[in-house]
């Protein structure tokens, strides 16, 4: 087991966790503010279309969530299932990539 990689993943898990905490708060506050007085899907699309800030924010959100979830699941698999090694890393890298792709598709739908 590569100790440097393990501790890097642990640190990434911590840092993405902190980032997600911040992102979720920003996301919820924004949602609460913008839906005051009602908001239709068309109005949402009107505001988010071509909005680089929205794309950037949710892009970071998606990457952080994908990293955090994948590293967390990797630890759970190691501790609960005693599953370790390259096969686990490969499966979870695919899971990470899948989450990123799904997230990016959603952002494209929102911004483009």
């Amino acid at each position, binding site marked *: *087991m590569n*100790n*440097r990689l*393990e*501790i890097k993943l642990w*640190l990434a898990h911590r840092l993405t966790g902190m980032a997600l905490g911040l992102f979720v708060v920003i996301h919820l506050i924004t949602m609460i503010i913008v839906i005051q007085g009602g908001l239709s899907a068309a109005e949402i699309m009107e505001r988010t279309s071509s909005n680089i800030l929205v794309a950037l924010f949710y892009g970071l959100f998606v990457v952080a969530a994908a990293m955090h979830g994948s590293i967390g699941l990797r630890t759970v698999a190691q*501790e609960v299932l005693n599953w370790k090694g390259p096969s686990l890393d490969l499966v979870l890298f695919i899971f990470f990539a899948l989450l990123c792709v799904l997230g990016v598709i959603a952002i494209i739908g929102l911004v483009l």
Partner: protein
Amino acid sequence: MSSQQEKITVSIWRGKEEGDLESFEVPLVDNQTILDLLTSIQRDVDPSLSYRFACRVGMCGSCAMRVNGKPRWTCRTLVSKVVSNGELRLEPLANLPVVKDLVVDMAPFFDKWQAGKGRFEAKDSAVMEFAPIKPDNKKRQLADAAIECINCGVCYSACDVVESNPAFLGPAALNRAWSLMNDERDGSSIERLKAVRGEGGCQSCHTNSQCVARCPLQLNPTRSIAGLKKQVAIAMLKGEL
């Protein structure tokens, strides 16, 4: 002396890893500790009963075992405080190999102290003059808070991470490493951080604080491990690890 005639049933683990509980009916004696109880059983009922002790006053950390499922130091645990419905269950510490009856092999526990570089290593430079470390020195206070461990193994037995991940260094070894990280005279900080960041290192701790709940000296290994995590993270970000 009615209290001395009251009887309790004590179930004691007999055997090695494979074994069974054996029941003894004994009188409930005022102010008797679990260790006193075991001594009376060994002297009066079954001399083949094995258990470990040395100081009998809460200093040596030899007599720890599980009492009704929870690890405790038995020389400072009164029978009357822990007896439940007239029954008492005594088993060896968890997470360590059983030698016989209530005696466990502590070697894996102390091997992990070594693996976590739990030994003092003086700085290279010779001490030319006294370096006062005042009582209000922050690092000294952190070291003082962790230093009183008596190596009893109670936290190691209580830790669910050790149970699920035998590679985990455990609360005591990491607490020891933390006390040395705060020792101004010690010169192997980076080597120690490398030793505690491995597969069973500080980052494996779930912060469930079972060690804190069970430590007979009210130490806080979880806080010590959190300190190590922070130092490992900072050293990692600085590129020192």
